[in-house]
């Protein structure tokens, strides 16, 4: 009997499996011939290039090429879309963007709306990312405890992540408008109807609040995974030493969660710099330009306005791209530092 495998699969099922896998085997057989040819030609190491080529092609067509075209657009002026119809102006669009009396005061800049958008984005990033980290960490800590119906509560916090940003924006717009749910709920307490999104402070507050509400579930999930990877015996040892909950959090949870926190921080930063959809639907960038962020500026300048200027929009998007590249490099550096640290431990 040795060497003979006995299949418990019924013959009919095995036959069906054979029949279904036949086209795959046929395809593999056909592909095998050129693959062997390639391997002979390029050697084993060259095969890596062959397998990477499809992805590189997609990356080139959909990322690299648009990036290059975008840069070329940023060196042209006019309202025309086709490059041959546009006038080459060199670095003029960048000169316009950087033509400023003081970068801290957008009103002294030629492209005042651009700098207002940059300032708004910077302020938004600081408040939104801080709020996101605190809220996601608090949620993860609560969801990590022994709760009844824990699966249900995890789903509740994750659910907004599944919603389209436009739906998120519209839901909150209906809640916050003058005839909205919030004013209705406050009216029994004597509050006069208030247009929350027409006030600069409240429009900013709700832009931050809504974006945190919409995305927090995703980051909380990352932190929850980190929390569950912390060995339980560390907590048991701390409990035996009668360490306070604050001390346990500061000395055990926070240091061991740091790799996840750094990932969340950088991802949230990148997402916050790119903020557009839900805030655009919620406030339209108003009141005035107080919630107009850099992506909306690019959209308005390049497409929406009859004063549209694709060259200026391209230059602004190149600058934004540089910021995002820097943030991504920070993320990569942080990840590799954590990896090395993990290996040393």
């Amino acid at each position: 009997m040795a060497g003979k495998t006995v299949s418990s699969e019924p013959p009919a099922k095995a036959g069906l499996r054979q029949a279904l896998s036949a086209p795959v085997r046929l395809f593999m057989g056909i592909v095998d011939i050129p693959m062997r040819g390639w391997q002979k030609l390029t050697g084993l190491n060259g095969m890596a290039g062959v397998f990477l080529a499809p992805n590189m092609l997609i990356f080139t067509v959909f990322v690299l090429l648009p990036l290059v075209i975008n840069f070329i657009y940023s060196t042209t002026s006019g309202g025309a879309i086709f490059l041959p119809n546009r006038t080459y102006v060199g670095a003029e669009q960048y000169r316009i963007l950087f033509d400023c009396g003081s970068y801290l005061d957008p009103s002294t800049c030629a492209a005042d709306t651009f700098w207002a958008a940059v300032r708004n984005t910077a302020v938004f990033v600081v408040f939104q990312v801080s709020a996101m980290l605190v809220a996601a960490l608090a949620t993860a800590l609560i969801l990590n405890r022994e709760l009844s119906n824990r699966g249900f509560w995890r789903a509740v916090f994750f659910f907004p992540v599944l919603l389209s940003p436009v739906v998120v924006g519209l839901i909150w717009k209906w809640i916050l408008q003058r005839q909205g749910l919030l004013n209705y709920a406050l009216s029994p307490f004597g509050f006069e109807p208030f247009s929350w999104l027409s006030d600069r402070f409240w429009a900013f507050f709700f832009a931050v609040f809504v974006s945190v509400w919409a995305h927090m579930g995703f980051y909380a999930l990352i932190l929850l995974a980190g929390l569950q990877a912390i060995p339980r015996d560390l907590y048991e040892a701390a409990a035996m030493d009668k360490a306070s909950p604050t001390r346990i959090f500061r000395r055990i949870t926070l240091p061991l969660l740091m790799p996840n926190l750094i990932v969340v921080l950088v991802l949230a930063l990148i997402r916050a710099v790119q903020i557009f959809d839900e805030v655009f639907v919620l406030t339209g960038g108003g009141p005035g330009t107080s919630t107009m962020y850099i992506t909306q500026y690019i959209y308005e300048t390049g497409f929406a306005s009859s004063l549209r200027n694709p060259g200026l929009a391209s230059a602004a998007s190149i600058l934004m791209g540089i910021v995002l590249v820097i943030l991504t490099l920070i993320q990569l550096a942080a990840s590799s530092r954590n990896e090395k640290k993990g290996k040393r431990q």
Partner: protein
Amino acid sequence: MTRMKSIGAALAAVLLSSVAAHAGDVRIMWYSDGSEGAVIKDLLARFSKANPDVNVILDEVSYDVVKEQLPVQLEAGKGPDIARVTNLKAQAQHWLDLRPLLADAKYWDDNFGAQADWMRPDGSNAITGFMTQITLTGGFVNKTLFDQAGVEIPGPKATWDDWAVAAKKVADSQKVFAMAIDRSGHRVSGPNISYGANYIAADGKPAPIDQGAKEFLSRFVKWNEEGIVNKDVWVSAAGTTYRAAAEDFINGGLAYYYSGSWQISGFAQKIGDSFDWVMAGSPCGTAACTGMQGGAGLVAVKYTKNPKDVAKVMDYLASVDVQKEFAERSLFIPAHKDVAAGQMDFKTDDPHVQAALKAFVAAAGQTAAPAMKLPGWKWSDAYYSAIVARISQVIAGEMKLDDAYARIDEDIKAKVGAN
């Protein structure tokens, strides 16, 4: 072999039929303010029944799509075959000259000639389309609120200041907003011209913003600050995004709403007999009592693959019977000269609508000369956009009025320079 031949023949038939259907496709991009979408659908269904060789596809979109996405499509040499557009002159280079394709070009010249220049390049005699309706901006009054407050509705020669005072009294008494004006540069241009504004310089290029425009815009900003005008409308977006205040009026939350004749159909549907409303023309400034003429035009796009079919559809839609039925059912002021001159039987029992349409027709005669020029002026939309973006910033407290005037001039200058 016979079986193979049959399969081949069937395949060829399917391919040919699909190619034939594609050859006769006429795609129309259409937005609606009121009920005109349903009316045009009905009219086109009749056309399709009589012309099975032409496949008309009506894409109903929001106004924002026409304003923001269509221009980009056109610049890329794409787009629908026919489009309903308000920014007609600035995009005139993209419209198809239908003159050589039409059954009777003279009929078009005679009946749509008055507005033909609004939708063709300067100096051209092209026929690119027709106005689906003539619009005029004007003020709507919630008469019930005025009556309940015991405030008399100001007369036809009342100024903007008179209206502000009267509407404020109503607002204080009825706990509503006094006034609102749509977030649109076009909408405030009538009032600007009433105070003597002129946007067009001697060389045909945009003139710097003048004292006439400043007279009204400064009042408008002040009324926003004082809460007389519903501030939400203008600060609820950044940039040049269009916002109407129609819903506030429909909900009975506004004493006076300055918009235009295209709202009538929507009001007829949504207000019904909830309250009495009247159209009160355009308030006066120091120079005139004018609104802005305009409207939406249906234009053929020159990138169409089927120009003959497009002309066939346009000929049908421009015919007297179709024009009359479209205007009567959509409750629009017709652009067609003969139809406008004849007896109109607007399909509504609502007395407010009949009265409002008559009032708009009467007010059209008071349109000031500078306001008549703007629909056919290439830079009008650039002017409107700059006003909206910058005055919104002033109302939101981001900018001083004098700085906004300087920025408006700079924005327009940059636009002219870039083109």
